[in-house]
């Protein structure tokens, strides 16, 4: 396997790395986190100006035509900086759904704006009872004259608080956990009947509960065919999972770097604590987990663009599991090796720890992915 980056990929990585290094120091992040949007509009706009939000889109929409590996390079650096901007949900997840399901007219109207970060999207696919199952949709879409009315409750919509449009999965036919009958709509958060309850999540990223009370959505706001959105939701969530694995690896790399520096600097009992063999063992264990996670993130990045298949789904489930397990191990060890300050709000490590724990509860937790993997193993 050839892991060498092309010149363009190297330059892409360098640009994002420098952007994050210069614009996302810890103090800056804290001020973004405390803002109303929960992220920096200026940084988001810069991502757009530099073409970074256009990476995965085709050249027709001002994009780079980038694949999973290019996305991985960007997400890795954004993860390292703990960037709060909704890149994953707007560009990868929502943008992907739009590109896969959208009509030519919808794509012409919206994709260029998404690619330039002028339009920020969110995806409302989870519900209080859905517990990671994309097919567990109780929000209803009732066909009416000229469109649909949506009623229901979508949970933890990341970026929903600032989104220009929210992609909402709602059931237009069938019941319970039927895969068939799920439709995807472009909902204007300012429309009548839409309520957003905004809150910060554990790691500071803002999200909202989306309450829909008879919200009218015109026919041209339906994405793809009515009742047939499930396949695309699963496929694009797969791309999002691969991107999130890369983001987690960036955060883990930083956690390991911080810990190693601390071990070499902190003196106790007359010497740097890193000279104690047991702590060296623990540091090595962290690096071993990081290496495995890095490999799985690369595998996921390659699988993300493949055609939808059980093998792809199995690979992504495995990657998510390995990466988030490594993430929790690394952040727990890092906190222990730092002693008390590892837990404090004033030190960036605790924020990495919270982020890595959050990530293990997005797009499916350990049990969810192990079950999916086991089920797909039987099919193979």
């Amino acid at each position, binding site marked *: 396997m050839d892991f060498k980056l092309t*010149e363009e990929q190297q330059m892409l990585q360098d640009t994002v790395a420098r952007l994050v290094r210069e614009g996302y120091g810890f103090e800056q992040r804290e001020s973004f986190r405390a803002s109303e949007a929960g992220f920096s509009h200026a940084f988001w706009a810069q991502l757009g100006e530099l073409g970074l939000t256009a990476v995965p889109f085709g050249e027709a929409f001002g994009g780079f035509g980038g694949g999973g590996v290019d996305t991985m390079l960007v997400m890795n650096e954004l993860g390292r900086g703990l960037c709060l901007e909704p890149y994953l949900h707007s560009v990868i997840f929502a943008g992907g759904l739009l590109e896969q399901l959208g009509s030519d007219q919808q794509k012409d109207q919206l994709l260029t704006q998404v690619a330039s970060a002028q339009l920020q999207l969110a995806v409302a696919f989870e519900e209080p009872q859905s517990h990671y199952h994309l097919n567990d949709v109780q929000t209803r879409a009732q066909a009416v004259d000229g469109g649909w009315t949506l009623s229901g409750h979508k949970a933890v919509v990341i970026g929903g608080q600032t989104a220009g449009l929210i992609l909402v999965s709602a059931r237009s036919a069938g019941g319970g956990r039927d895969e068939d009958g799920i439709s995807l709509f472009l909902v204007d958060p300012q429309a009548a009947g839409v309520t957003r309850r905004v809150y910060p999540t554990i790691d500071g990223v803002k999200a909202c509960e989306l309450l829909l009370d008879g919200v009218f959505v015109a026919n041209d706001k339906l994405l793809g065919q009515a009742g047939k959105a499930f396949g695309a939701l699963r496929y694009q969530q797969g791309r999002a999972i691969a991107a999130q694995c890369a983001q987690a690896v960036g955060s883990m790399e930083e956690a390991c770097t911080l810990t190693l520096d601390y071990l070499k600097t902190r003196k106790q009992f007359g010497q740097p604590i890193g000279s104690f063999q047991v702590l060296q063992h623990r540091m090595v264990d962290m690096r071993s987990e990081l290496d495995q996670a890095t490999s799985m993130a690369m595998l996921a990045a390659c699988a993300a663009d493949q055609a939808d298949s059980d093998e792809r789904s199995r690979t992504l489930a495995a990657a998510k599991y390995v990466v988030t397990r490594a993430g929790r191990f690394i952040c727990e060890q890092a906190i222990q090796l730092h002693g008390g300050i590892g837990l404090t709000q004033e030190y960036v490590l605790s924020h990495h720890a919270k982020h890595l724990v959050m990530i293990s509860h997005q797009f499916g937790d350990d049990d969810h992915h192990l079950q999916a993997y086991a089920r797909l193993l039987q099919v193979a």
Partner: protein
Amino acid sequence: MKVLVAVKRVVDFNVKVRVKADNSGVDLSNVKMALNPFCEIAVEEAVRLKEQGVASEVVVVCVGAGAAQEQLRTALALGADRAVLVESADELGSLAVAKLLKAVVDKEQPQLVILGKQAIDSDNNQTGQMLAALSGFAQGTFASKVEVAGDKINVTREIDGGLQTVALNLPAVVTTDLRLNEPRYASLPNIMKAKKKPLETLTPQALGVSTASTVTTLKVEAPATRSAGIKVKSVAELVEKLKNEAKVIQ
């Protein structure tokens, strides 16, 4: 006006370099390389001159191994029009590089040559000055401000005593200091465009320049690790230590 910018491929500033076990040099295997930060500032200044309508073409040149193409592509992505690689696998000192750049200057006939004031690996701060002397150009070094005024160029230099502004006749050599400008980011569209810009490769032989060195590196070693400070009980003890141990007074 054609502007020529010379750049260097160096170890990335973030890397903690290590000396090889045999003390023959610095270990560069698998180490991240990058465009020298001062050279990046030089490219930025040239591109700004082009945007102001002062420069008509920005040509970037690098003396180095084949891998230096990466840095030339980066310079193209930052806005340069054309790139030239003078390919040499040898480690060349300032004088050899200056001679090679002189040959490129003869070939390209620029009105202005901009270089970084020094490279962060060798820290010589010599190449720009040597090039100016070899080509008979005026020189304005450690520039914190550059202003083209007709057929002259005003360069504000950061010197020990403060700021000095000199007016140079063109053609001239300018070397950049940190505060001259803040380099732009390479945007994705520009990274894509850089792929299509021309990059030509030359050799020292083709330029008719001998790169034989008059200098041999005998040994490279890491600086002594800093030892703990000591407290003294009296001025007399301090003076005694300064005289006999540190040997900085007589």
